[in-house]
């Protein structure tokens, strides 16, 4: 087995696991369960082996490149397993494994679910190492198809509609993606990224308007899959109504993989740097807006879903600024500075994958046990968990770790990754919008944490329920039927694992940041100054200030005008055609900006 096969293994092993699980579909129940577990082991645990084996060479800045099947460069399918692919795989398998374990208890279960889940994991790995435009299209299709089906596995009535709208808008975006691929292929006759870039530079005016329009179409399609503002409308419903384990993977991993896969295209092709800068600006604006919408939600999982839009804004802001620097100066100092920005974006993407996965799983357990998803009606969650047989408050502690991480409280990973973002973006306007979003995040999670408060006497409970939306608007998010469920051991195991990872990610942050920056091509020692200042008094003071600001904002949101505003934001008109219009207008604006 050569290096090429070793690099492809993280994509192939989950497929083998899916075949095993699928074989169980028609087997006897006992052997079906065995096959399902074996499939999950092959697909979610074994991929760690090639990742560990490849780590020494890849993390030093090396890469495994090749053509699948060993065909000639002009006709074969290229792939590239570099530092970024390794890191995205780490992020994916770190969340996918625990989330699957959580699903053993919280559902869904069964051969078909596990097979689809493994197909999704395989597509994530394959997307991370795609280096061929058409292959990237195929990977995104597999990824999307598996996700549409997995969203419906929760069986909630609204889930079908959410999945359908996700499918339609995502399919529309992929049509634009394919047209972009056509444009570049029509110009250069190549699909491999490097060959496309070489072909374009040989053309007069680097392919001119057609090349820019193609890049814009590809970038717009991926921006929609990443849920960059304003192309986010499909996400909240799909992520809120999916099964908890699927929500964790969708929010934690799925929206970031296409973004990092896009990096390789943008740093090579004309207009890529400017596209990165624009997407980054959109992300920096999305972060505070997403938080405001999240703060106005009443459904616990929908609140988390809107936070994903806000958090992906953080990631895209730094990523876009980094891509712009790398594209402007691919071989010089700009590339190193850009790599530090992309490394900060990745660090936050990894931290978000872990803490948002943890939050979806622990909040999922809480809402299942309490049979209530409305954050204003749900009180005494700790007591409900104890009633469900949780003597050691694993779920409560896990939620606390997740909430403190996203609020950027030391020593958890969210603090370190947001500090990395702040340091990398210092002096830009994006720094301030992200700071504003951080205040909102604190307020929003103070609100969500109130579900653990003791239930109040009847009189004041009524004031809470006043601000609940009318029952009609909330039918899609009805709580599960039985309230007396036990907290499954698998759920505790999954949340405890992710909570430990959040803590470890915070404690080991300086080392992690250095490794990530080196793997992405930054100059050695580029992150040392940051590491030294991580726990400096000024940083801690800033954190305290943010927390105080969040508390004040929370208090402000509890006032009558605050409640009215929240209700107006919550019930704002939304629809599929608005989303489609946003996609077309966004793409047109991007093209116009690049051509100007």
């Amino acid at each position: 087995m050569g290096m090429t096969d070793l690099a492809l293994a993280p994509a192939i092993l989950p497929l083998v696991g899916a075949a095993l699980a699928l074989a169980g579909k028609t087997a006897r129940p006992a052997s079906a369960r065995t096959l399902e577990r074996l499939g999950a082991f092959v697909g979610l645990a074994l991929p760690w082996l090639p990742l560990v084996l490849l780590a020494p060479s890849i993390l030093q800045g090396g890469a495994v490149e090749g053509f699948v099947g060993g065909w000639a460069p002009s006709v074969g399918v290229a792939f590239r397993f570099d530092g970024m692919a390794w890191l995205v795989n780490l992020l994916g398998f770190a969340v996918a494994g625990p989330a699957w374990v959580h699903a053993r208890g919280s559902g869904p279960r069964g051969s078909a679910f596990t097979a689809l889940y493994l197909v999704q994991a395989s597509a994530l790995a394959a997307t991370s190492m795609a280096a061929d435009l058409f292959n990237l299209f195929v990977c995104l299709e597999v990824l999307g198809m598996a996700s549409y089906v997995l969203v419906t596995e929760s069986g909630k009535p609204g889930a079908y509609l959410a999945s359908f709208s996700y499918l339609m808008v995502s399919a529309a975006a992929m049509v634009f993606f394919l047209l972009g691929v056509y444009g570049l292929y029509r110009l250069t006759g190549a699909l491999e990224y490097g060959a496309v870039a070489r072909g374009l530079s040989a053309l007069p005016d680097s392919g001119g308007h057609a090349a820019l329009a193609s890049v814009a179409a590809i970038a717009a399609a991926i921006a929609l899959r990443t849920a960059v503002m304003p192309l986010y409308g499909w996400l909240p419903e799909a992520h809120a109504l999916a099964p908890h384990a699927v929500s964790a993977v969708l929010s934690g991993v799925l929206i970031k993989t296409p973004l990092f896969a896009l990096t390789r295209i943008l740093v090579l092709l004309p207009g890529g740097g400017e596209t990165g800068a624009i997407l980054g600006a959109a992300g920096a604006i999305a972060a505070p807006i997403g938080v405001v919408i999240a703060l106005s939600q009443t459904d616990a999982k929908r609140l988390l879903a809107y936070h994903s839009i806000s958090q992906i804004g953080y990631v895209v802001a730094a990523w876009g600024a980094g891509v712009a620097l790398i594209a402007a100066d691919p071989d010089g100092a700009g590339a190193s500075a850009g790599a530090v920005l992309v490394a900060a974006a990745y660090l936050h993407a990894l931290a978000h994958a872990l803490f948002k996965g943890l939050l979806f799983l622990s909040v999922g357990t809480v809402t299942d046990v309490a049979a209530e998803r409305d954050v204003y009606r749900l009180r005494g969650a700790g007591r409900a968990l104890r009633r469900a047989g949780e003597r050691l408050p694993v779920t409560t502690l896990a939620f606390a770790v997740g909430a403190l991480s996203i609020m950027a409280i030391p020593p958890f990973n969210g603090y370190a990754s947001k500090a990395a973002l702040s340091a990398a973006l210092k002096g830009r306007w994006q720094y301030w919008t992200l700071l504003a979003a951080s205040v909102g995040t604190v307020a929003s999670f103070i609100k969500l944490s109130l579900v653990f408060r003791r239930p109040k006497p009847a009189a004041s409970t009524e004031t809470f329920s006043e601000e609940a939306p009318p029952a009609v608007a909330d039918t899609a998010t009805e709580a599960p039927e039985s309230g007396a469920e036990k907290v499954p051991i698998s759920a505790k195991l999954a949340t405890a694992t992710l909570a430990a990872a959040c803590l470890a990610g915070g404690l080991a942050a300086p080392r992690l940041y250095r490794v990530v920056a080196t793997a992405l091509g930054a100059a050695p020692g580029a992150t040392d100054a940051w590491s030294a200042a991580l726990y400096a008094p000024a940083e801690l003071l800033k954190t305290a200030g943010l927390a105080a600001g969040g508390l004040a904002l929370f208090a402000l949101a509890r006032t009558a005008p605050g409640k009215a505003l929240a209700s107006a934001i919550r019930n704002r008109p939304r629809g599929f055609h608005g989303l489609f219009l946003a996609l077309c207008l966004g793409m047109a604006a991007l093209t116009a900006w690049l051509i100007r």
Partner: protein
Amino acid sequence: MPTRLAALASVLAAAFALWPLFALDVAWPGTVRDYLEAKGTVESGAMNLVSAIYLGYRAYDTLGETVVLLVAVTGAIGMMAAGSALAPREAGGAPVEPARSPRREARSRQRTELIAALSGKLGAVILIFGLYVMLYGHVSPGGGFQGGVVVASGIVFLALGSHGAAPSPLVGARNLARIESAGFAILLVAACLGVASGKGFLAPPLPGGDPVSFIIVLNAVIGIKVGAGIGLLCVAMLTEEAA
């Protein structure tokens, strides 16, 4: 009206953005065409260059598309099963016996003896034609996907023809699901053979052998998998019996 306005604005914006792609006056690049003309048949052994591309040079993409189809079929069947589990409850009151449902009766009225007799006999012929399309994909237009859907239509004919008489085992949803999952497993084994022989994933595994044999094997496996998958979906819709 706002919907129409949004639709109009979307079309205009998309047309503006994509216009440069359709107003090109650059000559078509010929690199890949020339390469395929010179070496395509020799390297892959397939007379039909379409096969050479989708099962040779770009077999990795084809594996992905096969997975897309697999996921679509699995998802559709899962949704149909969930839907039929919900439907009787939605009607309210006593659960409706599936065999008695009005849809089922209307459907059985549309089935006549003539259709049953004719489609039952034709089914076998179509299956053989499907196998031909599948196995000769490397020399003539056709291949695994095309042959597979012909096989699936043969299965639909058999299902229509089995009205009243003893049905063919090919019509059983369970059997089709078995064939589909076995087809997928064999496809992966075939893809991984190259890893074992040191030639690499999805490469023709046999050293020195004619590479076209690998294309024939892939065509056959994909054809069987696609035929069973699409056939399963059709049978499930015909009989409202989910696997």
